């Protein structure tokens, strides 16, 4: 069951790489949140209830609901165009994400590790790097944020892999989630929104030395 969920997560990455509209991104984020919620529920079996509750609350409430809604609000508020505006054609993106996926699998094949479920590793790895790829390859700032959240999801998956033994790390991950996302979105919402009307990243590329 867990594997199915994780594979769906990976699928969503591929979809994300070729999606053209921000709304789609947000839906994918919601989906990923739900997937993580399910995974948490299934994985962290031997965790004390309170902690588990906290984690699930975070995944469901924060990842699946609050953040996407919030971003949607921002997009509406700042009249951000609906296009994702990638630098590269979708086909190439698809290719690259696939390559990331494959290389993750290959890399995992090097590992012989009884404490680590390889699926987690592969999924986490590919999610992190395709999130990075998303940031690098898209023009808009909002897409950067989305990419960052994808990375967070990947990291979360990774933390789940060790979660049972070290709940503390999972909590750390949650903390990172909330902290960074709030910080970034906070700035994004409060400042960039009202300083620049059309938040195109090119407007934020003037601090340079060349």
């Amino acid at each position, binding site marked *: 069951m867990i594997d199915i969920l994780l594979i769906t997560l990976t699928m969503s990455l591929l979809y994300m790489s070729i999606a053209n509209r921000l709304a789609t991104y947000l839906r994918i984020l919601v989906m990923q949140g739900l997937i993580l919620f399910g995974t948490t529920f299934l994985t962290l079996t031997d965790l004390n209830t309170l902690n588990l509750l906290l984690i699930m609350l975070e995944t469901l409430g924060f990842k699946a609901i609050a953040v996407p809604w919030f971003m949607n609000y921002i997009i509406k508020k700042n009249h951000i165009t609906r296009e994702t505006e990638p630098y590269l054609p979708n086909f190439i993106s698809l290719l690259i994400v696939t390559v990331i996926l494959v290389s993750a699998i290959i890399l995992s094949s090097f590992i012989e590790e009884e404490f680590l479920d390889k699926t987690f590793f592969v999924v986490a790895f590919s999610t992190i790097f395709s999130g990075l790829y998303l940031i690098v390859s898209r023009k808009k700032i909002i897409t950067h944020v989305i990419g960052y959240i994808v990375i967070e999801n990947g990291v979360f998956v*990774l933390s789940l892999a060790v979660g049972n033994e070290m709940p503390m*790390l999972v909590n750390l991950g949650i903390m*990172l989630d909330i*902290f960074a996302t709030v*910080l970034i979105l906070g700035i994004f919402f409060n*400042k960039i929104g009202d300083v620049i009307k059309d938040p195109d990243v090119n407007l934020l590329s003037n601090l340079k030395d060349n």
Partner: protein
Amino acid sequence: MIVLFLIASILISCGLFINRNEFVRYLLVGLFLVLLWGFAVYECFHLNQTEFGFFKTDSLGLLLLLALCVVALPALFHSFRYLEVHNTDETPHSKGLFFGAMVLLITACSVAYLSNHIAVTWIFVEITTLSASTLIYHHRNIRALEGVWKYVFICAISITFIYVGILFLSLSMKRAGIEDMSFTSLYSNRMKLDPYWLKFSFLFIFTGFTAKLGLVPMYTAGIDAKDKAPAPAGALLSSILMNLGFVGLYRVYAILAQTPYQSWANNIMIISGLLSIFVAAVYMTRITNIKRMFAYSSIEHMGLVVLGLSVGGIGTYAAILHILLHTFVKPALFFQYNQIYWVYQSKSIHDVGSYFKYNKTGAIVILLAFISATAMPPSGLFVSEFMIFQSLFEAHHLPMLLVVLLLLTFVMWGFGSNIFKLLFTPPTTIDETKIPRISPWESLSQYLLLGLSVYMAYNPPTALVQLINDAVGLIQ
């Protein structure tokens, strides 16, 4: 005690946030300084004691804590001066925000130095990001916004890297069957750790810390941050915050030290260090923005520090000494930058000049600080650089040494030609009547800092040498 200090200073910073009264602000900041110094003094007498298993006052932490105390004093003083002079668009609210953030930053750093648990360090690194971002965005204009945006984003990414590193570390601990994640236990069990994941985790953690430490690859946002932050804040960013990165790196490196994979870690650090010096050389020879120039010179010094650390031998000692002295020298430059800006109302090298004519004391500071920052004798940094070169020589890295020397010469050339333009070449367009009279006392702190760096380099008190040697002992 550490926790008390933490709570107290967080309360103080909250107080500063909400407070609107000038006098109370002075009072609170003074209180905080007293607290900080008291804390430092207390720790001096409680060396190598663990608190809650999360904090441990080892010699490295203590050294950097003391350095921080020394820098914090003038930093806060100059912040007051800065806000006075720039009081056109200052509201009590913004002032409160500024000081609150600065106090928070100082606190976070000073506690993070002493943390004995990688997760705790990580948390405080996050807090520094938060407070630093507030400082950077003090002038609410679009450039500042860009600076803070980049800084926050890059830091967020790098923090994630560190987190991933920690996860890998935990994996390797599982292999070894270790539960306790504190540095001491990691260090004592380092031979048991699973090399595969250890390498992974070191790579990720190192990459993450480069953002704070100011090294290739993640140094980029730091430059913008130091450029955009008000000069006193910039001073802190380029001194104590970098030290924080150094502490983190040092402690993680300590785990790998004396293990078979140390050389592997060394190679990573050497690559990063050389590239950093190279980047510094690239920009020092072409930069036109004085503040960014200072920032790049920090990059160069960090590169040297990492080189010294990775080569080992006397290099480790030199690295710690170097970062210590750099903590005193670089703020001096940033504080002096304030006065430069008051004179010319510009940070572009094209608009400045004849500083020696307009502000003599300041000009002398710039001259001395230049000598220090390029590590020419008789400056203090010369000693540590000399030792670093010596360690490179001893480790038979002669070609590397020559490359480094070449690059440093270029750095010095670029730095020098800009500094001397600032000092001596008559400016193109300047209204002499508008130039404010700057009291020599403004420069006092810089003289003291520079003097301190020289003294500590050439005639180090035995206690200092002892502390540094202990710190070196952490990885040897």
